[in-house]
């Protein structure tokens, strides 16, 4: 039983770490601000969630689990709001997204020169 929980927790931590590193690579690799936000989204939702669930499996104390749940809820609750706020501020201040469509080649060439 204990071993099973240990293994599950390890798997959760592993998946979480992998997702976080993927997000970290994404934030460096993606071409512009808006796409980078998607990469951050990966680390903030499932990455953080998996790591916190992995920690929850390791603890026995109900208070600690409660606090971890609180951290998780706050992460899921706050981060989309913060991301939205950020994206909104960016677009209102005239930061143009790089778009994949044909009609927007103009913006793409402009921003790729950065």
């Amino acid at each position, binding site marked *: 039983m204990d071993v099973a929980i240990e293994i599950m927790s390890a798997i959760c931590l592993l998946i979480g770490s992998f997702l976080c590193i*993927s997000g970290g690579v*994404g934030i460096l690799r993606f071409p512009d601000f*808006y796409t980078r936000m998607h*990469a951050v*989204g*990966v680390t903030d939702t499932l990455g953080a969630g998996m790591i916190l669930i992995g920690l929850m499996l390791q603890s026995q104390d109900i208070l600690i689990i409660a606090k971890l749940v609180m951290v998780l809820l706050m992460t899921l609750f706050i981060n*989309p709001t913060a991301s939205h706020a950020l*994206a909104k501020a960016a*677009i209102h201040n005239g930061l143009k*997204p790089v778009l994949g469509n044909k009609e927007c080649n103009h913006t793409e060439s402009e921003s790729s020169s950065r």
Partner: protein
Amino acid sequence: MRHAIYLFLTLTAFWLLNSGHFSALMLSLGLGSILLVLFIAHRMDVVDHESQLVHLSPKLPSYFFWLLKELILANISVVKHIWLGNHSISPALTTVKASQKTDVGKVIYANSITLTPGTITVDLVGDRITVHALSQDNIQALETGEMDRRVSQVVN
């Protein structure tokens, strides 16, 4: 008044789960703190139907699990895009319609959109939500309107 009671109950739960000390002194300090917070929240005018989500709770869990499933799928797709590189993505900006009547509903919808990686709510004006998406698939998934429908179910 109803909302204040809900807030009181959630705050009590929050305090007890955080504290873990049940001596008389701590409990009375906790009660005092909760009352002080309630008073300040009342002064700030933040206790109303928008901030207390109790009235939409019965359908929330099923929505939550559905969202969790979507979340995992979306994460996998974005991670795939990250490792495949820039040529695999085609970012797009689009507008979808939010059919929720209340502000809370729209906010839940908009936040659900942002929460699933691959789509970000950039702006919310009236009932039009501007979404930035990482690839066309994300937009197509959004335009089927399933998330919209489910959020409407939860709120109304």
